Structure formats: C-alpha cells, structure tokens
C-alpha cells in the first residue's frame, strides 16, 4: 500500500497571522439568512459525525447574528476545507425545545451556532 502525502503546512499557510475562522472570510459567498429571520433546524442525515445537536432538530429559532464563515464540522473533521458556509448564532425558546419547561420561565432561551446547510426558512 502506498503512503499518502499530507501537506502538513496547509493550515499554517492559510491562517498564520490571520486566525481561524478569520482565514475563511469571504469564501462562503452570500448568506442565505439575515438577522431576525425565523429558521427551522432540519433533521438531516448525520451518520458518523455532526455538531448539530439532536435536541435542536425540528425546532425553530431566530437568527441573532451571522458569526463567521467556516467549513462545517462535518467536512473539517476530515480536513475538507474547500466549501466554507455561513455560520449563524440562533436563539431558541426553551419552551420550544423541552415539553416540560415550565411556563413560569417562558422567557428562558438557548443560543447555539449552526452552519447554513442545517437551516431552512420557517
């Protein structure tokens, strides 16, 4: 079997002096969603790896911020950094996530970041 040839320098070349995720700036193209949009988390196939938590799937949230561009974890986890996406910070109502969440604390929220591929308009 032949040995693969790894470019151990590729991240150094891309990110030195710039930082990560800054090094992916302007690579994702136009963002599909904007601050204030209501989105739903899709329940996409996630076999082998994801960083989109099961507890978010099917729930709706409001886009709070467009935080940065980066390859999604599903790709970066195999060192595939060719297709960065926009990442969004999303705010969920806890009552939309957990059926037993008390009405007394109906104002409580949860915020987490997800890449664009996981989101659809709601």
């Amino acid at each position, binding site marked *: 079997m032949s040995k693969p040839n790894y470019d151990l320098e590729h*991240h150094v070349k891309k990110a030195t002096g710039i930082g990560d995720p800054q090094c992916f700036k302007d690579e994702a193209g136009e963002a599909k969603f904007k601050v204030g949009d209501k989105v739903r988390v899709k329940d996409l196939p996630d076999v082998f790896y994801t960083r989109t938590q099961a507890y978010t799937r099917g729930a709706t949230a409001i886009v709070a911020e467009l935080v940065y561009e980066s390859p999604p*974890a599903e790709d970066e986890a195999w060192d595939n950094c060719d297709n960065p996406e926009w990442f969004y910070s999303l705010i969920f109502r806890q009552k939309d996530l957990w059926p037993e969440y008390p009405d007394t604390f109906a104002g409580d929220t949860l915020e987490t970041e997800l890449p664009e591929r996981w989101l659809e308009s709601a």
Partner: protein
Amino acid sequence: MSSPTRNRVLGHLDYVGLLQPAIHKETHAPYPDEVTNEQYRAYTRAAHDVGGERDVPISWEEKEEEVWEHNTFVTCEVLAWRGVWNAEERRRRQNVDVGQTQYLGLPYYGRWLLTAALILVDKQFVTLTELHDKIDEVKKRYE
C-alpha cells in the same frame, strides 16, 4: 461535617441506588428486521451529543491534573500546530469514533491520549507494530 460514619452512610445512599431489578436484553448481532429505526438512530448516534439527556444531580468537583493528562493535552495541541491534524479531526475521532462504550467508560483524557496514538497510525506516520513495540519498550523501563 465529615466523619467515618457520615462517609459510610452517604456512600450507602449512593450504593443502594444501584440495587434495582432490571430485565436485560442482550444483543449479539441482531437480524436486520429486529432493529427498529429508533434503535438504528440510537446505535449510530454520535456519542458526544448528550445535551438534554436525563441525569441526576451530582457533586460538582474540581480535579488535580495528572502529569500525563497535561502532557497529553500539549501533545494534541502540538500535533495540530505541526499540521498532523486539526482540532475538529481530533474531536471527531476522540468524541465520536471511539464509540459509546469507550466514550462513557474511559476517562476524559484517556480518550485524548488514545486518539493521539491512533492518528499517528492512521496517517501512517508510524506503523501499529512500531506503536506496540514502543509501548512494550516503555513498559519494560518500569519493571
């Protein structure tokens, strides 16, 4: 307030919680038609995705770091610094590829360490034979 008696009875309260009747259904490679979609999702789940699972109140503790734990953390970061992997590759391997049993069965830094060992072999920087020989060599220093 701590005393041998207090420690004993508090330990007893923890221990009796483990005495429960249970019906265990062992699985030894079931047939495809015996596995529901719900079970498929559970078995193929990413072990790290624990948010929202039920658990009990515990005593929140700090911990002294072991020398090997500190060195392991540094090794993992330096391997990424020198381009052997990126942190996301590490997390995928360390927190999901290890599988459900090792995920909850091994110490936190135990998974970091095993994952660092395996990346060397997976990317063919080292053969598994070389790794085994090195472990053996190191072990012999302590005999």
